[in-house]
């Protein structure tokens, strides 16, 4: 799908350009940029893009929503757009309508579990919950004796211990102690926590790939401006080769993330092939965040290490996003186990499945 044909992504890009300019946000110490940005996103129907119209959303396709997340990554967006989209998507799996306002979702890590108690309340602890403090509502995947359920709860009913991720965005610990939900319904038969984590992981992969695109762009621009030893630093072969490697990491992240998004958007079942796509995207994009981000900083020198410069908005968020919904190490182990269980001669057929 070409970007120019995607009116949803174009709308998002326009809002980000107008209201989420990295330099403006970086200069704004009081956070005055947040409210108008969220207002504009809400008016455009983007936070509930993945919620069908009959559940209160705007009913965009998965592919359209994924392209919004790419654009959000390119802007290093620091409001809970991805989280609200994912929460709305999770609720829609059980035909639960989404409320207005910011949402997040739990668990946000494959290691955490929320339990559905016999009395219908929810208990458990979720760590590393993105924008937990900013959320008015939380979408929950909970396991009970009868299987998995999906619930909508008020964030105010939970105990939320604030934390910050590498990028300075909230990454909180959310504790539920017999919380009564607003709505709770059984999850679809084939749904599991792994699918939720991989959906979140693909969202983060797209955001990382977007951030790397921007890091490449601003690094190239800077190298064409900065003069050292009486010439632009872009004319030094060592700098050129570093930027070529950054382009390679950016390209790998872009290819892995968009391929996984395409696989999810066009598959009917969550099979091994989709697992390969989604897990690979999270692994490879996380690796690219490390390698690519290091080069972007190297090209910028000391100025890129300052709080005044915008580079950290991209580089630190890309690093932080590695941790959400299962790190690259976690998914590498899971993918490795899957590959081993299928056996050596089934590896190539899996890789060549698309």
């Amino acid at each position, binding site marked *: 799908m070409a970007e120019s044909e995607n009116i949803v992504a174009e709308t998002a890009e326009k809002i980000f350009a107008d209201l989420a300019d990295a330099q403006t946000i970086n200069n704004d110490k009081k956070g005055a940029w947040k409210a108008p940005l969220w207002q504009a996103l809400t008016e455009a129907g983007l936070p509930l893009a993945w919620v069908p119209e009959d559940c209160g959303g705007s009913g965009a396709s998965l592919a359209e929503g994924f392209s919004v997340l790419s654009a959000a990554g390119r802007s290093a967006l620091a409001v809970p757009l991805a989280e609200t989209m994912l929460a709305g998507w999770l609720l829609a799996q059980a035909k639960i309508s989404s409320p207005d306002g910011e949402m997040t979702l739990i668990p946000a890590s494959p290691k955490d579990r929320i339990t559905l108690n016999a009395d219908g309340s929810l208990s458990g602890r979720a760590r590393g919950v993105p924008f937990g403090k900013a959320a008015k509502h939380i979408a929950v995947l909970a396991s009970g004796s009868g299987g998995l359920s999906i619930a909508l709860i008020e964030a105010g009913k939970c105990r939320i211990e604030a934390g910050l991720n590498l990028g300075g965005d909230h990454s909180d610990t959310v504790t539920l102690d017999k919380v009564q939900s607003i709505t709770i319904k059984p999850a679809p038969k084939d749904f599991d926590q792994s699918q939720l984590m991989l959906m979140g992981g693909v969202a983060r992969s797209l955001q990382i790939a977007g951030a790397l695109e921007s890091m490449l*762009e601003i690094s190239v621009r800077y190298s064409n401006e900065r003069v050292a030893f009486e010439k632009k630093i872009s004319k030094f*072969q060592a700098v050129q080769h570093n930027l070529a490697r950054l382009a390679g990491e950016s390209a790998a992240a872009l290819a892995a993330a*968009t391929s996984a998004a395409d696989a999810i958007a066009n598959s009917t079942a969550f099979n091994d092939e989709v697992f390969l796509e989604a897990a690979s995207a999270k692994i490879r994009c996380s690796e690219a965040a490390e390698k690519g981000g290091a080069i972007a900083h190297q090209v910028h020198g000391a100025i890129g290490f300052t709080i005044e410069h915008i580079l950290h908005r991209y580089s630190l968020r890309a690093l932080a996003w590695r941790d959400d919904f299962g790190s690259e190490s976690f998914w590498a*182990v899971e*993918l490795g186990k899957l590959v081993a269980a299928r*056996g050596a001669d089934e590896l190539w057929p899996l890789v*060549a499945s698309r």
Partner: protein
Amino acid sequence: MTAALRFDPIRLPPECEKLRKEVRAFLAEEIAAGTFDPHKPNREDTDVPEFSRKVGERGWLGMTWPKKYGGHERSFLERYVVTEEMRVANAPTRRFFVADRQSGPVLLKYAPEHVKMDILPRICRGEVCFAIGMSEPNSGSDLFAAKTRATKTDGGYLINGTKIWTSSAHIADYMIAIFRTSPPTKENRRHGLTQFLVKMKQPGIQVNPIGQITGQYEFNEVVFTDYFVPDDHVLGEIDGAWKQATSELAYERSGPERFLETYYVLTELVRAVGKNPDTRSAEGIGRLVAQLHTMRRMSVSVAGMLQAGKEPVVEASIVKDIGTVWEQQLPHRVRDLAAFVDADATNHETLENQLSFAIKTAPKLTIQGGTTEVLRGIIARGLGLR
């Protein structure tokens, strides 16, 4: 800023899956018949003419070329599937691979009609082998410093000089080479080289084998002494070979051979660790598979763009850069992960032998067909840095 890099998520069309099954069935038959052993990439005899003819019979050579030249007018994506299946099976493709990938398309674009009618159908039948004459003893990456001369004579040119590192020259029927027809100009140091079709196995050509550190003899020195090339074997513009190089390279740079060269060690590692690997092995394998999958999706994406008539030169160079670096590191990563594998595993000896060969192969992967340094220069130019 230049245009953003594109890697559209191409899905292989249904006809590719049908074809893939046919190729796998064919390769399984050939393996069963003893034509080649997929577990032995280090075999000495990499040239199997009979296999080459069978691949031609199946219609898998010149797949994208016009039917009138013996081609099959199929898509780049179908050709992609055949190429990757052959590579993963370690099939003996040496005899036809260069002709099918690279030389045929050059002839299609630049050769006179009667030459095309003569040679292209024979490539499609798997009967002829091509070599590429680029490097010389004093010009490798600096392609346009080539000195081997083509001097105009009655009805053609006389060639004098030496090409080197020429893969398959000892078995090749033809070579496509660049020779100097004029000195470079002050304005353009790339000026003055012309592309020629050279018939091998003729007087005036001497092929001297060069041993490689793997123990194989795949590349050669090729010495030309008053070797005659007729006028109708000039390919393209006199003195203008530099204009013809770039589009050719997009085909050459982004194929599955650019990241699958050492793939076999990964398969064998998965076999050695068994169904229930420890955490270290699982994580290592998971990362390698994720990297492999990403490479392949990038490479398929470039094939899709070529099919759509685009020339993704920068994207293709990126695929070759990170693909060759990956396949170079792969045997070392597999060796790390194999350190604690049960030495009594049934395939342990196979894995050890493969690792030994792959580790010795690894250094060439980032040199052949355009070094990492050259590729990064091309990428940098695409980024607007040069």
